[in-house]
């Protein structure tokens, strides 16, 4: 379980997240949604202990994560950032790095490590690409390889920042099924999502952020009945629910944007 207690933070002099408190329960999927620049990724980095807090604390199972040694934290909590430039190594090597927190010196892999690496590649659907170099893969395949690395890390809490980036719709659904699988084996998942249909359909809880604050944090059906989501995104929308699946449809804006004053 992760608890945020009045956390505040940002970059340099710029504060991005203001006084956020929330509890992410064990074995649940929580999606962070909101407009660009509202602080979702910053909040996730603060949860991962990658960004210092200006005030407040992040508790992992009751312990302040700033007091947990980094190597110990890496065995409990994994983080997948937004698409990063990755050095040109093979998929198998990348996934193997997921076992880094468990390796002593010299850095050799045990049979258990190798099994976890292989299983992670199979789960993420990159086992057939294991000897391919990352630069030879599409963006979606690279993303799946990074997800496999995180799966190999085998942590109780999984933090994902826009994991659907670069994935086509089939692989998006496969990844969401994988996230559901993580939940069934008891993992806590917190993910930044832009696809509201998938976020509402697959999440146990949705946290809506606006201007650095969580303005609503509830179950998906409660979120769609409130106005926090549309307020945060600055749009109007319809939604419907069929066969346990949410359909969130933004309404075309009536007021026309004027481009008359802009010359190219």
């Amino acid at each position, binding site marked *: 379980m992760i608890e945020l207690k009045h956390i505040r933070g940002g970059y340099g002099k710029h504060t991005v997240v203001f006084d956020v408190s929330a509890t992410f329960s064990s074995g649940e999927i929580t999606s962070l949604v909101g407009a660009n620049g509202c602080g979702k990724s910053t909040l996730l*980095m603060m949860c*991962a*202990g*990658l960004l210092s807090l200006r005030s407040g604390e992040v508790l992992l199972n009751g312990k302040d994560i700033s007091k947990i040694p*980094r*190597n*110990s*934290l*890496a*065995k409990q*909590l*994994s*983080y997948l*950032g937004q698409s*990063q*430039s*990755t*050095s*040109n*190594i*093979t998929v198998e*090597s*990348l996934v193997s*790095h*997921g076992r*880094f*927190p468990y*390796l002593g*010196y*010299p*850095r050799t892999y045990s049979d258990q490590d190798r099994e976890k690496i292989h299983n992670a590649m199979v789960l993420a659907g990159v086992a057939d690409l*294991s*000897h391919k*170099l990352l*630069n*030879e893969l599409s963006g979606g395949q690279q993303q799946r390889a990074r997800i496999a690395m995180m799966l190999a*890390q085998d942590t109780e809490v999984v933090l994902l920042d826009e994991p659907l980036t670069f994935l086509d719709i089939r692989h998006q659904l496969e990844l969401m099924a994988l996230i559901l699988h993580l939940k069934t084996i008891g993992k806590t998942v917190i993910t930044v999502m832009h696809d509201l249909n998938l976020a509402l359909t697959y999440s146990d809880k949705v946290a809506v952020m606006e201007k650095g604050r969580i303005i609503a944090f509830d179950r998906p059906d409660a979120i769609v009945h409130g106005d926090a989501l549309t307020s945060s995104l600055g749009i109007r929308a319809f939604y419907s629910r069929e066969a346990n699946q949410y359909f969130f449809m933004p309404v075309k804006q009536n007021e026309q944007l004027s481009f008359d004053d802009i010359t190219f």
Partner: protein
Amino acid sequence: MNTLRIFSMIKNKSSLPVKLAICFGGLLVSVLIGICAGTVWISPTELLSDLLAEGLSQNERIVLYIRLPRILATVLAGSALAVSGALIQAVLGNPLAAPNIIGVNAGAGLFTVLCIAVFPTAVKFLPAAAFAGALFAVLLVYGIAKKTGASRMTIVLAGVGVSSLLNAVIDTVTTLYPDSLSGISSFKVGGVAGITLDSLFPAWILIGVGILAALCFGHDLDVLSLGENTARSLGMNVSVMRFLFLAIAAMLAGAAVSFSGLVGFVGLVVPHISRKIVKSAENTAVLPICVLIGGAFLTLCDTVARTLFAPFELPLGIVVSYIGVPFFIWLLLRKRGGKHGD
């Protein structure tokens, strides 16, 4: 596990030892050529018969007192600069970074020159002074990058600026102390002419320790290359490891500069050649290849430098550029099969 996968794994695992063996063979060949070639050509059979005969022949004296120290110096300096370059490129995440480009060599050179000017008798302290200078320069560039949140290109630009400044200070010191620094022009262009085995001490120890440390921590360097956030989320203490790798890089470059002068380009070009050979950027594989290729490359360059216009000798740094640059450009243009090792 199907047969295809097992075959693929064997192929993949066996390729690195084969490549290492080939590169080691290349290093041995370059050393052999270095021993035989010179103003006087000494064939391997001639040398062997001299070795078996009693007493020290003329040929043996040439090899023992002139060529072997030079070869040892070029193998050490080439390996050290290549590994230093690979470390700096990986830590700064910039393929353009190299000890000579971001001012590490210039920092080592400045402190060496200062040591010679102020303490002319303290020859044994030159490697330590060079290490301190290299570390000062690399931390200065890294500090600028960290403070400004600089992009990859800005790091190189900051390094070029620092390098120019340090070179200007070297020129100032050489102007103020012209007598004690009579050999400075050859130091600035790089070279190992007239080197003795004694003058390689204690630099060879620093290089040995540095290379061993780099090879031992190759796996950690791979994790660091994944990016700061990923490395931290995998449990790495990024600040400590960055400092450790930069210190190793500075120690290697400093030790090499202390006896071979400001040889440029090896630290830039050899890591790239090594990545092309390995066909990946995995440092656990790239670093040992760098050791072998760096040593072989600089030894061959030195052999060309002292034989091409014998008995006159070209400065080593110039030959490095003449051979290295066209080869490097050819490698870049070749670009077979995509972006291997970029």
